[in-house]
C-alpha cells in the first residue's frame, strides 16, 4: 500500500499533518486539497473514492470537518493512527493559538488593541458567511439545504433560546419529506 515502507506509519502521519496544521490559515477547509494530495497521490494511503467517502463521514460525524485527518490516521494505522493524526493536526496550531491569545490578552485595553480588534473582527464575520457558502459548495447542496440553513439562522436570531436539537431535527424531517415526495413522484 505505502510507497514509504521505510517510514513508520506514525512518523509518516506526523510529517504530513504537523506542517499542514501550521499553514491552515482560515481553517481546516484550506488544507483539504493538500491533505487529499498527500493521502491519495503521494503516500497512496487510499483511493480517491475512499477519500471522498471519508470526507463525507467527517462532515456528518461529530466534531469539526478536520476530523478528516483522524479518519486518515485510522485508515493508515488503526486506532493508534487515528490518535496520532488527531494530535499532529490539532496540537501545533493550538499551541500557536494559545501563544497569540496570551499576547493578545496582555495588551487588552490599549487603544491600538481596540483598533486592531475593530479592524479584524469584521473579517472574521465575513469569513463565517463565506465558510457557509464553501460548505454548501463542497456538498453540492441544493436550494432546500440553503433555505433550511437560513431558516435555522433566522429562528435562532429571533428566538435565541430555541434548542438547536429541535432545529437539526426539523432538518432531518424536511429532507426525508423531500425524499418521500420524490419517491411518490411529486418531485423530479
Amino acid at each position, binding site marked *: 500500500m505505502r510507497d514509504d515502507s521505510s517510514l513508520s506509519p506514525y512518523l509518516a502521519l506526523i510529517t504530513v499533518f504537523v506542517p499542514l496544521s501550521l499553514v491552515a490559515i482560515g481553517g481546516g477547509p484550506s488544507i483539504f486539497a493538500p491533505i487529499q494530495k498527500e493521502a491519495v497521490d503521494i503516500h497512496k494511503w487510499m483511493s480517491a473514492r475512499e477519500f471522498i467517502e471519508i470526507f463525507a*463521514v467527517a462532515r456528518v460525524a461529530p466534531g469539526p470537518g478536520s476530523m478528516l485527518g483522524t479518519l486518515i490516521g485510522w485508515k493508515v494505522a488503526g486506532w493508534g493512527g487515528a490518535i496520532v493524526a488527531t494530535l499532529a493536526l490539532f496540537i501545533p496550531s493550538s499551541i500557536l493559538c494559545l501563544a497569540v491569545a496570551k499576547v493578545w490578552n496582555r495588551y487588552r485595553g490599549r487603544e491600538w488593541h481596540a483598533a486592531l480588534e475593530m479592524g479584524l473582527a469584521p473579517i472574521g464575520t465575513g469569513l463565517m458567511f*463565506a465558510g457557509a457558502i464553501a460548505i454548501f459548495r463542497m456538498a453540492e447542496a441544493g436550494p432546500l439545504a440553503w433555505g433550511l440553513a437560513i431558516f435555522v439562522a433566522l429562528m435562532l436570531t429571533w428566538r435565541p433560546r430555541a434548542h438547536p436539537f429541535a432545529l437539526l431535527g*426539523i432538518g432531518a424531517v424536511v429532507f426525508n419529506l423531500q425524499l418521500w415526495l420524490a419517491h411518490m413522484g411529486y418531485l423530479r
Partner: protein
Amino acid sequence: MADPAPEELAPPPSLFKLGSVLFWIGVFSFGGGLSGWIHRQVVHRYRWMTNDDFLSGIALAQIVPGANVTNLCVYVGYRIRGAWGATMSLFALMSGPTILCVFVAILYHYVQDYPVLHACVDGVAAAAVGLNIRLGIVGTQRIQRMRRIAPMIAMVATFVAVGVMEWPLVPVVLIIAPLSVAAVWPRKGGGAAHA
C-alpha cells in the same frame, strides 16, 4: 436579545465543569456548527464570557492557522481558566469526536444504502450550517453597533472575495486586514476608537 453585561458574568467554572461542557458539545455536534454551539453554551447559557469577547475570539481563531473550531476552543478556554483551561477545553472538545468519527466510519459501510439515513444526515448537516450563519448575524449586529462604515465594508468585501468570488483566502485577508485596521486606527487627538 441584549448581551450579558460584564458585571452579569458568572464566576469562572472549575476546570472539570468547563471540560464537561465542551465534551458534550463535541459529542453532540453532529453535522458541524460547533462555533454556534460553543457560543450558545459559553455566552448565553453559562455566561462565562461576554458576547464581545467571544466575537473577538472568533476573529482571532480564523486568522491564526489551524481549524477554526479548535482555535476558538483554545481561546475560550484560555479566557475562562487560563492556559490549563485552554488545554482542558481542547482535549475535552476533541476526545469525543475522535472516537465517534471512527465509529461512524465503520458504521457507514453498513448503512450507506439506506436513503432515509442519507436524508437525515444531509438535513442535519444543512441545518447545522445555520448555526454558524447565526454567528455571522451576531457578528454583523456587533459591527452595526460600532457605528462606522469601514468595518461593514471590510466584512462585505471579505465575504464577497472569499465566499462569492472564491479568491484564495490568504492574499484576500492580507490585503483587507491592514486597510480595515488602518481605517479605524485612533487618530492623534481625534478621540479613542471605541470597540
